[in-house]
């Protein structure tokens, strides 16, 4: 087909496509700051040509499709880095909270131990002095109280984390349900070969949010469908269906994450859920265990030293000392929380080594606990100062990891922006281009109209305008 009507139809195709292009740009501008939106572009093709003998004549322009610009690999990297970042962030937040009780060198368990040994030294020149004896008991009491406080605040932190686990699991379930529903919509569209652009954006966005909570892996199943699993293979979304996770209180009183009957708590590797569980199940019990070791070792050593000497017993026969601290639980578990001073009578401190009240010989044994390997082959102060180092270095490493991961994430987001982000300048330039094209096509229509009038009126200008 050719001739003036052919040209008219070509001009019309130009008008239509320019309008479509303008619409696409205007949609981009409208979504310039929509999170997760990928800019769209109208893909056009020349119309299929008509062949007349030796001639190949064009038939205008065809809008092939409206395509979203995104890099699926980049989206996967962003998911992974988000999982990493959220896990580290959750850990750092908790570690920073945890380390506050180890932050002072002049108060707390370390200083209490120093003060306890110092009070024994103070007693040694005047071992019968009841005020000095009382200050040994006071120092012992302060130490026990600070052990109790440290243990209880770690336990409180741990039980607060249980709330976080339950909340996170609830959010995971909300998100997987939303993702499944979007997936169904996409599947129905893609089956009809329709563009699912903004739905895919929506889904990508939801998966990004889910990555903040849990280590989710995305598998494309073809025809636009996806399957989501955790990195250990627990299904979250499959075939447009979501599978809810549940929580259940475990044997240790901690909330466990369940997929059906399977406990997946310890297999989670990313997202805030994994970070929270890492702190709750590894870091806090680790620190508590060390506090228990120290409390148990310290109490036992002081008690043993006290049993070597004689109490202040002016009128009675020489009597060996008993426990200063309550006997720590067998195996030391819970020793920090249970530590208590066993005596209230300061005379029961066994300062004497020969049974006479004025002897201070056994104070040397009590003081020697300061240099005794009470826990893990270390002296009390060395053990505690190592613990402080450990807490500090774990926290500072986590902080460095958060920074590093944050930078990678930022870079990936920049990269995503450079591919999928809407540039207003670009859209403005495109719009100008589309406007011009539209105007040109319209002009062509006017000209053809004039030419058709010429043809219809056989050269007489007045009749048809």
């Amino acid at each position, binding site marked *: 087909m050719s001739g003036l009507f052919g040209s008219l139809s070509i001009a019309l195709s130009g008008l239509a496509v320019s309008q479509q292009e303008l619409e696409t740009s205007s949609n981009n501008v409208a979504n310039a700051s929509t999170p997760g939106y990928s800019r769209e572009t109208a893909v056009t093709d020349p119309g299929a040509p008509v062949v007349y003998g030796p001639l190949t004549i064009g038939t205008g322009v065809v809008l092939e499709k409206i395509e979203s610009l995104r890099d699926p690999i980049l989206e996967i990297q962003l998911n992974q880095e988000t999982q990493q970042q959220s896990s580290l962030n959750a850990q750092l937040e908790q570690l920073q909270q945890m380390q506050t009780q180890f932050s002072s060198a002049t108060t707390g368990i370390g200083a209490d131990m120093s003060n306890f040994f110092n009070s024994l*030294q103070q007693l*040694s*020149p005047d071992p*019968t002095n009841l005020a000095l004896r009382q200050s040994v008991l006071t120092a012992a009491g302060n130490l026990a109280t600070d052990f109790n406080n440290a243990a209880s605040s770690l336990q409180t932190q741990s039980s607060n984390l249980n709330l976080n686990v339950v909340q996170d699991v609830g959010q995971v379930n909300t998100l997987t349900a939303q993702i499944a529903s979007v997936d169904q919509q996409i599947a129905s569209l893609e089956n009809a070969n329709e563009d699912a652009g903004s739905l895919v954006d929506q889904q990508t966005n939801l998966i990004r949010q889910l990555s903040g909570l849990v280590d989710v892996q995305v598998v494309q199943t073809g025809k636009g469908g996806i399957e989501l699993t955790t990195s250990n293979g627990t299904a979250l979304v499959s075939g447009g269906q979501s599978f809810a996770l549940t929580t259940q209180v475990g044997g240790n009183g901690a909330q466990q994450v369940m997929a059906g009957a399977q406990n997946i708590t310890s297999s989670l590797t990313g997202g805030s859920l994994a970070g929270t569980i890492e702190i709750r199940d590894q870091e806090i019990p680790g620190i508590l265990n060390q506090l228990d070791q120290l409390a148990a070792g310290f109490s036992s050593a002081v008690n043993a030293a006290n049993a070597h000497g004689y109490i202040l017993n002016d009128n009675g026969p020489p009597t060996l000392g008993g426990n200063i601290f309550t006997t720590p639980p067998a195996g030391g578990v819970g020793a920090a929380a249970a530590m208590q001073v066993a005596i209230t009578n300061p005379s029961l401190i066994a300062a004497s080594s020969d049974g006479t009240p004025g002897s201070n010989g056994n104070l*040397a044994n009590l003081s020697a606990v300061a240099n005794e390997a009470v826990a893990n082959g270390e002296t009390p102060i060395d053990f505690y100062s190592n613990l*402080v180092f450990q807490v500090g270095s774990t926290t500072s490493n986590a902080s460095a990891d958060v920074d590093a991961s944050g930078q990678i994430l930022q870079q990936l987001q920049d990269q995503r922006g450079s591919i999928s982000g809407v*540039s207003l*300048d670009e859209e403005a330039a495109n719009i100008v281009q589309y406007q011009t094209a539209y105007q040109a096509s319209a002009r062509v229509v006017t000209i053809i109209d004039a030419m058709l009038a010429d043809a219809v009126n056989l050269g007489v200008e007045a009749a048809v305008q």
Partner: protein
Amino acid sequence: MRVNPNPMPDLLAALNQTQLQAQEAELEISTGKSVNEPSDNPIAAALLIENNDQATFNTGYLQNLTTINGQLSSADSTLSSVQSALQQAISLGVEGANGTLSADDQAAIVAQLQDIQSQIISLANTSYQGNYLFGGTVTATPPYVADGSDPSGVIYLGNEDVNQVSIGSGYKIDINQPGSQLFSANGNSVFLALNNLILALQSNSGVGTAVGALTAAANYLSVQGVFYGNAMSQVQSQTTYLNAAKLQIAQQQNTLAGVDLATAANNLSQSQTDSQAAMEAISKLSQNNLFDYLT
């Protein structure tokens, strides 16, 4: 390459970073410490625990030194008093050995010596802050009680034990000498010698020998008493040492956790400048785009 059209998140991250730095510098300046949490410097935080331990012990040792110095000097001056009483007794003995004295004079000398005897008993029963100094570790009851049936005129109720006090890490000193090594030492007992002198004067025989024995016992006591002088000089030099160590410990603490105020202030103003620059950039951002120029 296409640039990321939305640099806002980057700029906000940069702004956040500068504000964090400013906060850190402010914290350092306000607390005067560069280690406010273990994570600020884990090694320093651990060393600060040890440093505080040393500081606590150092203060404790210094306090102990003050206490035992009082005790030692009280004992030392007691021994001086005993010594001068003994010298007086020796002079009286020499006078009595003369042989030309009347019975009345002799009796007067004996009476004076008996006074001296009870004075020395009372000195040997000196207490410091409620603790008897010369009873070994029996500090609650007087170590010497007059007893006419004993050849020395007294009996010793103390023991042979010595208390030690730590005045430094791994540094202990004896803080007492039992009376049994000072006044009633076997073979050199001043009490026995004094009582023998009184008996000799009363029986008017062997007075010269008794005076000689008392002189020997007094000398022995004076040699034994050197212990207190030595201990006090140890206390003195250890006090000097610990005061120097105290400075060192404080210096170490400052090195570990102190803030260089100039640097911190500089960091603060630097991060404030950075923060302003970031805000400036944000405010300038996307004020203009191509749409503004379309007509």
